[in-house]
């Protein structure tokens, strides 16, 4: 479904991603863990199409297409969804109206009919129950004045409504208490399907108890330096990232490349 090869990206002239290789098949859940500042969000944003992040080398194929040439909205139409680490506040745009506009934009671009306000309300209510979101949030402006946890819930609500094929969750667990975490994980798990995939970015193992990954990767200093099964997350929890200290910026060696076990 998603194939990243030797991806390099710069932000404001500084190289942040320094050769990422990753393959995600339909039906899989991949977790990317790593210390703060290692480039996890940068990878997520590059996949979503943020244009201030400049790809300098490598390629990303999504369902056989060259993902990097697509505009953010085209990626969404193709089924990609990013749950932001820091969701954006948009004063003056009603939350429910925003979500209906988004769903209908996707539907129209996919050649489907728009859904009317009443049917959408029914759908939104059902999905809000799933993520246990207080109905009062729909009448507020998008993310405006939401607490950290409410913003994350709102991201997952959007995901539940838009039903992406590849969902990238960037630190969706941060700012959530344990009950909220369970709810959100249930919302995410409800979306798991053989034709869908998840890329879960986190730096705590906690979330992975609820959204159990097939593969875990460790990102340090812009590279995936180790990969393994779900046990790797537990190991990281115990050991920390100390064993994966940032290395000097040398070209990727074969050794580090083959350590990335997600490739077949």
């Amino acid at each position, binding site marked *: 479904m998603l194939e990243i090869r030797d991806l390099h990206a710069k932000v404001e002239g500084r190289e942040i991603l320094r050769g990422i290789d990753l393959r995600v098949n339909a039906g899989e859940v991949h977790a990317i863990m790593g210390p703060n500042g290692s480039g996890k969000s940068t990878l997520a944003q590059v996949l*979503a*199409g*943020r*244009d201030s992040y400049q790809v300098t080398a490598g390629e990303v194929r999504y369902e056989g297409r060259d993902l990097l040439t697509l*505009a*953010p*909205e085209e*990626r*969404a*139409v193709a089924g990609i*969804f*990013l749950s*932001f680490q820091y*969701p*954006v*506040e*948009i*004063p*003056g*745009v009603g939350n429910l*109206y*925003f*979500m*209906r*506009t*988004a*769903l*209908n*934009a*996707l539907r*129209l*671009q996919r050649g489907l009919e*728009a859904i009317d306000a009443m049917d959408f309300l029914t759908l939104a209510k059902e999905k809000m129950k799933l993520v246990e979101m207080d109905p009062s949030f729909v009448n507020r*402006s998008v993310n405006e004045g939401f607490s950290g946890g409410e913003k994350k819930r709102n991201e997952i609500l*959007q995901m539940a409504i*838009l039903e992406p094929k590849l969902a990238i969750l960037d630190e969706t667990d941060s700012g959530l208490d344990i009950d909220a975490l369970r709810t959100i994980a249930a919302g995410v798990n409800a979306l798991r399907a053989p034709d869908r995939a998840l890329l879960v970015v986190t730096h705590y193992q906690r979330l992975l108890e609820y959204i159990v990954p097939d593969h875990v990767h460790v990102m340090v200093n812009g590279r995936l330096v180790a990969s393994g099964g779900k046990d790797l997350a537990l190991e990281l929890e115990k050991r920390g990232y100390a064993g994966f200290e940032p290395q000097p910026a040398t070209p990727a060696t074969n050794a580090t490349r083959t350590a990335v076990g997600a490739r077949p």
Partner: protein
Amino acid sequence: MSGAANAFLQGISRPESKANGDHPSWLNSLRRSAFEWVGAHGFPTGKDEAWKYTQVAPILEIPFAPAEPGARRALSPDEVIEIAGELGGPRLVFVNGYFVPELSALKSLPAGVKLGSLASAFTQEGEALESLLWRRFRERPQTFTALNAALGEDGAFIRIPAHTSVEEPIHLVFLSDAGATPLVSHPLSVVFAGAGSRVTIVETHAGIAGGIYLSNAVTEIVLDDGAVVEHYKIQNEAESAFHLAFMDVRQGRASRFSAHSVAVGAALARHEVKVALEAPEAQVVLNGLYLPRGRQLLDNPTTIEHAAPHCTSRELYKGVVDGHGRGIFDGRVVVQPGAMKTDASQTNKNLLLSTSAQAYTRPRLEIFADDVKCAHGAAVGQLDDEALYYLRTRGIPQQAARDLLTDAFTAEMLELIQVPPLRSRVRQMLATRFADCPSAGVPA
């Protein structure tokens, strides 16, 4: 005066005989002195602070002729509604500055309310009018108000007796139909709101077809003690039209006035508002929304004069500027000596939608009294890139995302409109305006 100014003045003046007819002699002498004033003082230039942005020189180059009553094509009331909307209350319709009874709808009004054309008020009200009309010209003359006094022959006359409420909005519709010859009209609207009375006035200024015309409109509103007046002005003139308007408001004790201006039309439009808070505890709210695009220039000079203690003023103007458009807010708040406990606040926010769009914002507070509370803020910005990106990651195409954020910027102004049919009309006006953009938004 320059040759162009002279030629312009000759072109728009009418034979004296025309105004003589039924008009009282005080009016004829006022007209004469107003015309002489213009001859002596000429036209404002870029050197006049107050006319820094509204350049009149290009207007003076155009061979304008005075509008005539009856010089128009047949219009039906339905067409008027199509152009100006139906607000449910009485409607006075003017074409090229002259009242057209067949297009108007005068519903029954509370006893004593006077609503009609100014031309008929001249004959019916007699001498009583003398001290009431064109006060701004008489006290502080200025070229275009002087021209309105010198050459204006018709307009709207509204008088609300004390302690009388008019529930439905009074709609004044000023339509212009220029045809091949560029035309000038000088409508005057006067409103006297008696003590404790209430009324809502909506002025719509629009072009019937294209054509070049200049609408030189004056509105004079007097609020007696405790009167409550809401005024709306929708400026939707034809693309190549000029609109120069002046609104003069005087407020008595504890009166409340609120104005909402929505400017979308004309090549060049200036809507100047002056409010004098003449007695204690008067309150004024001035709201404005201007949306220049193409090569439009929309100028919004306002002056609020706190001349008495314990008065409150609130001002909120927002501009959305696209293309090579220019939007101007020039807001003066003057607090006179002795106007203590004045509470004034002024906000101007501008959204630039293109790199060639320009917004000028000039908040000016002139405070000559102690113990006052005055605040002002001004901002010029662009659409938030982060928000745009966020919307796009949800599948909303770029232009639709821009429109959504632009709507969010103007939504606040729409919500301030208290006349529901007018609010939906303005919403519709803005929606079609944004939909004219190259790639239209996605219906939600």
